[in-house]
């Protein structure tokens, strides 16, 4: 996913925002079903890879789309691509 903002955020700030968005929309019960984990994050390029349970992809996608601020600074998070394995994901991004 790509972070669209003029500011830079560390991985904790980013993930706190993502968890908060999921909890707001689906509650703690829903959030617990997503299996959300941060795999990698490039702060300079504003690019992150996260892992979620495949049944929760749409839930997480809508939660990410609902993010308008990170740490009270205007920001948006866009899902660039989704893949079944991390290897295939990096292949997709390279092409």
């Amino acid at each position, binding site marked *: 996913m790509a972070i669209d903002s003029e500011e830079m955020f560390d991985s904790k700030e980013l993930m706190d925002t993502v968890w908060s968005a999921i909890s707001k929309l689906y509650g703690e019960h829903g959030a617990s079903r997503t299996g959300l984990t941060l795999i990698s994050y490039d702060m300079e390029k504003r690019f992150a890879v996260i892992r979620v349970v495949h049944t929760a992809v*749409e839930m997480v*996608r809508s939660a990410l*789309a*609902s993010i308008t601020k990170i740490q009270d600074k205007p920001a*948006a998070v866009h*899902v660039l691509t989704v893949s079944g394995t991390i290897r295939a994901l990096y292949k997709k991004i390279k092409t």
Partner: protein
Amino acid sequence: MRRTYADMHLCPNLKDFKQVSRMIDKASTLGYRLIAIPLPLKQAGEIERLRDLCKEAKIDLVSRLDLKPRTADELMRNLRMFRRKFQIIAVMCESKNVARQAAKDRRVDLLNFPSLGFRRRFFDKAEGELTSSALASLEIDMKPLLTLEGPARVRLLSSLRRETNVAKQFRVPIVISSGVSDELLMRRPMELAALTNLFDLDKASAMEAVSINPLAIVKRNREKLSSRFVAPGIRIIRRGKDC
């Protein structure tokens, strides 16, 4: 086959030309191939300038007029005056009379309801039935879902869930638009479709709402506005003495 996505309600500040340009570029980057920008009547001449910008960004522009009539008569008057000047006519239904008239009028393309006035969302079964016999679609802007929080968003989601059920029941096409005036609130088509998950619209319908349904409206209206159009199903193929 790759889908063509459309955002039928992009609202940049037309006085800030740089922002308009940035938003058009961003729409293209996000994967849209067709956008509609509502033009105030005073600025209808801006269309050519916008069209040039869109051409540079390789995106198709549709002229759109948002009508906010206070009475059904005012709506009819406006439709008579402007229908042939704009490709898309959307009606912001602020009262029940206007909503009912807009629903049954075949010149109206999109029905839009105020996102904050929950008592003024008139898309009920009667409205759905009227709309199903005309041509209008239900337009849902995603901006309020992004900007509202807490009870206001909960109430909006509840209204949207009810309205999409009515639309499905009466086979009224749904169009999902962004309705944003800020670049940071722009979302990819897939993200808009994912947000509809919040009011239980299934994925297939959501994808239709950001691609097939808006494109069908534009295609139909462009055909109607072309000089070759005579009546639905009848158009001029050739002109000349031997015809």
